[in-house]
């Protein structure tokens, strides 16, 4: 039981790494996904951007972690950088694909006014795809928490560092406690993201109307 505070601290570090990594990854990734969307750019813009993203995506996060451990040394800093790179590669693909599926009618109508591309993105593309983008960011954070738990294996900080060491020294009981902590955290994050989805995503997809209609009959 005395390992639980250590486990909680390690988990907190993992969460911090995943959070910072996701935030930076999304902030860098969003402009890149706008550049990769075929309905917003010419092929001279989207093709090279997509190629760059494909290269980033080729490396699994554990390889990025190894690379950054070599570059910046052991610890959470390398882990955050690995998560940032992985998030950029992965979330941009999800996002440019959902940007490409948005309705072309509002885009045509608004671009016929002669607005700038930035205005088109700010006032049409982002509002139209916001619910998808938010859903993907939540998914990415969820995924990154699980990823970060493993990155410790190569010395990139977080709870994984403890788990792999306990396993190495045959202390499976302690390793199990740490794994349970990871499990509970993932479940909590899942629950929170369901709540956020209900509040912001379902609502923006006509959820309010559905609820109102239901209450008429109840």
């Amino acid at each position, binding site marked *: 039981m005395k390992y639980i505070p250590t486990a909680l601290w390690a988990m907190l570090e993992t969460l911090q790494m995943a959070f910072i990594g996701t935030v930076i990854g999304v902030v860098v990734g969003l402009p890149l996904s706008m550049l990769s969307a075929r309905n917003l750019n010419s092929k001279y813009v989207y093709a090279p951007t997509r190629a760059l993203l494909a290269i980033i995506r080729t490396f699994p996060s554990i390889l990025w972690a190894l690379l950054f451990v070599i570059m910046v040394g052991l610890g959470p800093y390398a882990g955050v950088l690995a998560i940032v790179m992985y998030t950029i590669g992965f979330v941009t693909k999800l996002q440019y694909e959902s940007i490409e599926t948005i*309705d072309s*009618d*509002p*885009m*045509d*109508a*608004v*671009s*016929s*006014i*002669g*607005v*700038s591309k*930035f*205005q088109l993105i*700010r*006032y*049409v593309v982002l*509002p*139209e795809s*916001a*619910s998808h983008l938010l859903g993907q960011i939540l998914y990415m954070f969820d995924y990154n928490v699980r990823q970060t738990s493993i990155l410790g294996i190569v010395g990139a900080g977080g709870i994984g560092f403890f788990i792999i060491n306990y396993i190495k020294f045959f202390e499976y009981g302690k390793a199990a406690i740490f794994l349970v902590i990871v499990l509970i955290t993932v479940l909590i994050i899942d629950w929170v993201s369901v709540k956020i989805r209900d509040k912001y995503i379902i609502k*923006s997809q*006509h959820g*309010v*109307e559905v609820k109102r209609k239901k209450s008429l009959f109840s």
Partner: protein
Amino acid sequence: MIRANKNWHIRIDINSMAKTPPFSLISTKKIIQMNDVWTSYDSQSYALEGVNLSIDRGTNYAIVGQSGSGKSTLLKLMNGMMTPSKGAIKIDYLTPNMNNKKFKKIMHTIGYIPQSLGLVKNVSVLDNILIGALPRLNKLQSILKQFPEHEIQEAKRILKLVGLSGKESRKAYMLSGGEKRRVAIARALMQKPTILLADEIVSELDHVTSREIMNLVLDAQKKMNLTAIMVHHDMKLALEFANRVAVIKEGQKILEIGVEGDTIVDFQTGDMSIEEIMEMYNTDSKE
């Protein structure tokens, strides 16, 4: 070249005389001119085949035709969203070109309402209308979404004009079909347009609502002295509201008529009665 500026003064630019467009009639009144325009979506067939069109400033113009006859293509040529494969188009004496700064300025004042209306579903009615004011915003205001107070007041005034006051914070997807059309009209009016292009905006509405919407456009057209070019498939509606009607069939303009009260003037065959026109149009439709 003779060109009318906003105040209707005539300016003669001797240096550009050589570049005078190849139109037989150059008048300060013409806002849209098309000369033998051909367009195609693929290499096999043409959507428009040699259309000639000349629209005066302030006209209430209607384009009538069946589905697939090329009406919507014609509108897309008029706002620069499409370029012709052959032939010449002049909008306010300029060839449509998205990269030309002068034409971009004209685009700011062309209100375009597509058949699907093109509203941004997840934002409020007021935000949808304010999109019409985007060209007047500077970069910082665009980033921060800071519309000047006078623009917001103008949007609210237009909202009242189209009969939607009190619904400014509603999301666009929550509105009824008629209300959505009013928002689309309001967005176009927010551009302070000189030309209003509308693609079958009343085609799916009931008789009463479609009359209301048409009257709304007619009012705005008269008050703002704008050139309204509306596409319909209902000839009756076109004759009722427009003062000039072009009939498009299979990518060609087969008829152009002027409407003055109850008399109809066919520019090719002389005077005709409404019945004759209707009959002619119906026979065409049946073929």
